[in-house]
């Protein structure tokens, strides 16, 4: 079973994503709701890929993506802002628009090869 790190500042949304991932056959490693926590988990935790909400209580999660990228692991962004929010370093990165359905998550993971 593939292990997923979820970074999402809304706990309820995070819980729903956990359910969706389980329905799709993935295992949640950890749910990070703050940037510091997400950075620590991104550096230390063992996972196959990450699902990253871009806006974490007003801070952007790109530093977390940097860490994950340095580790050579894949990730998928999720946001309610649209793709214009993407940092220039991440133009074209896989992006899922919130809110999303189970089917949309499945398709996004498939497109990203996850």
């Amino acid at each position, binding site marked *: 079973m593939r292990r997923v790190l979820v970074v999402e500042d809304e706990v309820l949304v995070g819980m*729903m994503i956990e359910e969706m991932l389980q329905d799709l056959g993935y295992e949640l490693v950890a749910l990070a709701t703050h940037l510091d926590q997400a950075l620590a988990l991104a550096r230390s935790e063992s996972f196959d890929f990450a699902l990253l909400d871009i*806006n974490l209580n007003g801070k952007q999660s790109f530093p977390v993506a940097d860490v994950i990228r340095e580790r050579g692991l894949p990730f998928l962004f999720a946001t*309610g802002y649209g793709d214009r929010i993407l940092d220039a370093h991440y133009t074209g990165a896989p992006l899922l628009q919130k809110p999303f359905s189970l089917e949309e998550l499945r398709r996004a993971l498939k497109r990203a090869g996850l």
Partner: protein
Amino acid sequence: MAVEPQAGKLLTTILDGIGQPFYAVDGNWRIYLYNRDAAQHFGRSAKQMIGTMLWENFPQDIDTERGRIIRGAMASREVVRGETLSLVGRYISYVIFPLGDGLGVFFRDITDRRNAERQRDEAEEALRKRSAELEAVLETIPTAVWFTTDPELRNVVGNRRATELLRTAREADLSSTLNHPDHFAVFREGNAVPPEARPLHRAARGEIVNNELLEVRFAGGDRRMILMRAAPLRSNTGELQGAVAAAADVTERHRHEDHLQLLVNELNHRVKNTLAIVQSIATLTLKDIDPAVRAAFEERLLTLSGAHSLLTDESWDGAHLAAVARASLRAGRDRISFAGEDLRLRPKSAVALAMALHELGTNALKYGALSVEQGSVAVRWSTSDGRFRLHWEERGGPVVLAPVRRGFGSRMIERGLAAELRGEVRIDWRPEGVVCTIDAPLVAIHERV
């Protein structure tokens, strides 16, 4: 020409040949020389005039300006030159000189020249007045304006605002400022724009520049956004004679728009987040109930979210019906055709139509034309006579049975949408396929009310 008997034929020929009126009087004002041009000027023949007294012919002129000039010359015995009104009311330039004990008078009719000069003076005055008015306007308006009279911008003039905008001294050489600026650089969408590619230069080469947004970055670090227009100046024959450019400082407006966009984006994010939370609560709460019910709820929520996204892209100013229809009918879209004019919906209409089309699409997928492979849906809309009309028609599906009880979707369409659009919405459960028609006042669809 006639002269007294002592004048010879040669004198007559000379006087008639000089091409200007001439006459001579003796010390008693008796006319004794009077040429052909004088006869033409005064309208009296030599036969009528020779031997008569000057003031007998023009008694009313003795005390006029011209009369005083002639009498003064007779008294002073000096050559007198000048311009005045003639004895017959024409403008003349004259030379009066002593001749014997009397006077010789040459004059030339300059009425046409004087009229031309007067017209020129009037035209010059009108032009000066117009120029002064234009200059006053140019100095008063909050728009920077530059003129050039050559393609290389060697000669450039600008108004007060032009020097203020580019932060140069009033007396600065604008040609140098625009061709070799040393205290600012110009950018378009983040890319440096060299002087020769800027609006006034391009207009001076014949190009018309409309509403070009440029950023001026000053050496001190300050930046201003300017909106520019420029056009070539051409002669009546179309020859390029220079160019004019105008620029308005839109920095504050631009900042305001950026700020507004930021607010809209933030608001949209919060709405999306709230919808995601509502979705999460529903998903977690309704975990153990029929998955179809959960899915129906989730799809409605996502349709609402999709409509919000379209509106956010347009700063909540409205959304295009075609985009709304496509976003709301994602499932089975390859079998749905859309036809209709480009129509912009006001935000509330966009959301209401998005939800209604989603319900129709969901019904078609579950029970109607889209539930079978060969089925299809045609969505057409049009506007005429101040009305908006949309027609949803399913074909090739299973035989339709009218529902015994109206579900939430049907009620949302027939009652909710009709109320929102202030029109009529009807679902016709025809055996061959569902037909839904919407007929509403256009004003309720695409204008803010």
